[in-house]
Each structure stands twice: as C-alpha cells, then as structure tokens.
C-alpha cells in the first residue's frame, strides 16, 4: 500500500516537472512569436515607403528635405539590428511621415490622390499593428516574468536556467512631440 502511494507521489512530482518545463517553453515561444510579429509589421511598413515617395514626388517634387528625411528614416529602419533599434528607427520614420503628411495638406492634388490616400491609410494601420504587436510582446513577457518570479515557478526557473526577459521600452526622448517644419 505504502509503495503504491510513494509511486503515485513520484509520478505526480515528475508530472509537475514536465508541466513547468512545458509552460516555460510555451510562454517563451509566445514571446518569440510576438517578436517576429513586430518584425513583420515593421518590414511591411518599410516596404510601403518607396511607393509613397514616388507618389509624393509626382505632386510635390521640390519638398526634397521632407522626402529625404523619409528615405533616410526608412534606410535606418531597414538597416537596424535588434528589436530595440528597429522600434527606435520606426519612431524616426513615424515622425518623418508626419511631416510629409502635414506638407501634403498644402497640395490639394496630392491630398485627393487615391493612391496617396490608400498609402496613408495603410501606413497608419501598420503603425497601429506595430503598436499592438509591441503590446502583445510586452504582455507575453509579463506572463513569462510572472512565472519566473512567483513560487513555485521561481524554483523551476532556476532549475531550467530560465531568466526574466527584458521589456521593450519607449524612452522619454522618443515620446516627445514631433516638430513639424515647413
């Protein structure tokens, strides 16, 4: 009788080890997946820019400074390594785009161009998606870190060598308002 209880207990303990191992694996995968989602959305955003530039050039050729700012920001985004840098580059692109869209207000033909409107809509929707995938990334990290910090997760975390992950931050400098120059 005692032996069966001990065997049952042993199986139970082994199961708990499995469950926690899997939980760490699943939550870790979720973080990786949401990270790749951010990258997908950022890439999509970068891919939209050349079209936008062509359209703007067709109507407002002499706004070279603003156009160049967007092209440069796109280059920075494409060349950025690591998620922190990419998100930062995306913020730069966002402010450059704001300038372009503000300038477009002064060109009625450009403002009414369907292609331009479509790109504007698409760019703002990808920006939303970037924000949402970042939110999900941080949410996933929160769940993961909660598991790492609370008992008995904290015990299994050290056993399996799992460390807390870093949140994706927006620094104060990036949050500051965008100046629109004319």
């Amino acid at each position, binding site marked *: 009788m005692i032996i069966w209880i001990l065997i049952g207990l042993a199986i139970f303990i082994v199961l708990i080890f499995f469950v926690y191992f899997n939980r760490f694996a699943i939550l870790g995968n*979720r973080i990786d*997946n*949401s990270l790749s*989602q951010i990258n997908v*959305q950022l890439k999509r955003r970068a891919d939209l820019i050349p079209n936008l530039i062509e359209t703007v050039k067709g109507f407002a050729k002499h706004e070279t400074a603003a156009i160049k700012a967007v092209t440069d920001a796109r280059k920075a985004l494409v060349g950025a390594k690591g998620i922190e840098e990419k998100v930062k580059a995306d913020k730069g692109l966002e402010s450059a785009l704001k300038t372009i869209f503000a300038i477009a207000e002064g060109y009625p033909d450009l403002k009414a161009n369907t292609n331009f409107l479509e790109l504007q*809509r698409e760019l703002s*929707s990808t920006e*939303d*998606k970037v924000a*949402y*995938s970042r*939110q*999900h990334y941080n*949410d*996933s990290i929160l769940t993961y870190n909660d598991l790492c910090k609370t008992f008995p997760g904290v015990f299994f975390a050290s056993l399996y060598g799992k460390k807390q992950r870093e949140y994706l931050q927006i620094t104060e400098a990036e949050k500051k308002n965008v100046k629109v120059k004319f």
Partner: protein
Amino acid sequence: MEKRVDFRDQISRNKNKSIFLMICVFAVLVLFGYVISLAFEPGYFFMIMIIAIIFSLSYILVSFYNSDKIAIASVGAKKANRNEYKQYYDLVEGLTLASGMPMPRLYIMPSKQINAFASGRDPQHAVICVTEGALEKLEKRELEAVLAHELGHVSNYDIRYMTLIAVMVGMVAIVSQIFLRSLWFRGGGNNRGKEIFILIGIVMAILAPIVVYLIQMAVSRKREFVADASAVKFTRYPDALIRALKKIQTDNSLPEKRVSKAVAPLFFTNPFKGLGRTHPPLEKRISVLERM
C-alpha cells in the same frame, strides 16, 4: 463587477457549461421523444425512442459544428469583402496581434442599428459580424472597441456557450411549439394515460420558451462586463468603448426586426429594447468602464 475576473476561470467555466448544456439538451430531446411515443401507439415505443436518440445526437453534433453558420444565416449576414471593408479587416488584424489570437472570419449584416456579434465554437473557428450601421456611424476607434469586445467573447469561449444556447435552446423552443401546434389538430385522445402525457407535453411546450428566456437572462449579463474588460485589455483605451456605448444609447431607437429573439444574447447590445433584457443596462456598463 467589483470582483476581479480571471479569464482562465471564465474559459473553463464556459467549456464545462457547454458540455452540461449539450447533455441537458440531449436529455430534454429524448424526454420529448418519450412523451411523443406515449402519445402514439405503444407498439412504436422503441422505434420512436431510437429515432429520438439518433436525432438528438446528430442534432447536438450538427449544431455544435455548425452553430456559427446557423447564427450567421439566421441574421442574414454576408461575408465581408476584404477590398471593400479594408478598415474593418485592418482593425480586427490589429486586435488579433494585440491578443495573440487567430484571425476570425468577418461578416456584415444589413441593419441600420449599431450592433455586432461573435460566434463559433472556439477561437480557431470564430466569426465576427457587424451591422452596416456600426460601420457607418462609429468612428475608427469606437468600431475598434466594439470589435475588441467581440474578440473578448471569442477569447473567453463565450461564443461557444452562447451560440450553443441560442441555436440549441432556440431550437427546443421551436420544437415544443411544433408539438403544441400538432396537438391542436389531433383532437382528444381515447385513452386516459394518453391524456396525462399530452398534458405533460403541453406543460413542457409552454415551459420551454420560459426556460429559454431564463437561461438567456442568466448567461449574458455578467459576460458583457467581462467582454468589456477584455476589450480594454486589448485596446488599453476604455474611452472609445464608452463613446461607442453612448452612441448606441442615443442611436439604436428602432428595434431590430430581422433578428430572431433566440440569438439576441449574442449581440453587443440587445437588439430589442425593453423586451427580454439579455444585456446589462448601457448606463451600468458605461459606469464600470469609467472607473477603469
């Protein structure tokens, strides 16, 4: 809802309730078969019972796997075209990114009201449907909040339980109605035993819609608060949901005509004013959101 809601509890509760519901529906249908068989010749008893069991099982399986299609068809919704409804698709895509859920299929239903509903058996087989009125009258962020609320129903597995209730129990009401009507034409029986069972049949047929009504009232009221909370969890922007609810308060004065009452609890807000309160009052939902 002052109490904190744990979404995981909500999910398992919904799954258990769905199973319980299916068992109940099965029992009720077999019981109906039993009553019917007693009202007929005794020689047919086993045949009718076997038919009743097979019918009940297939009924439950068919409605479980097709509940979303039945709900969609019952309100006359059409699949939303991606090119035509870009914003609708964009918003839902954004929300699926925020919640890490699969993309639901999107539908449009012809109605001037501002309303929406979600259906399906799990997040992988979910549908979201909005009215044309909602797409026209709501601003981008407000529409997003409404969609987030529906996605909240999807992620909490409310859709499974609520659609099953609407489809299965709604059908029980219809079946009992048919039973009641058939009794009108049959005339009085010539057997004392029969009369008692016919009486039971009538009582059940009268009770069925009342049961439907009570169940519907019990289900969705709490769920709406949870779904509102989920919506805020996804969008982090309660103001938009408050604005949407306020718009509905002033805008949805005309009751919905095309919608069956059985599917009313699925909706974002009750399509029938004052008739069978399946949702918490809008003022209450707004005040809860304002405290977030």
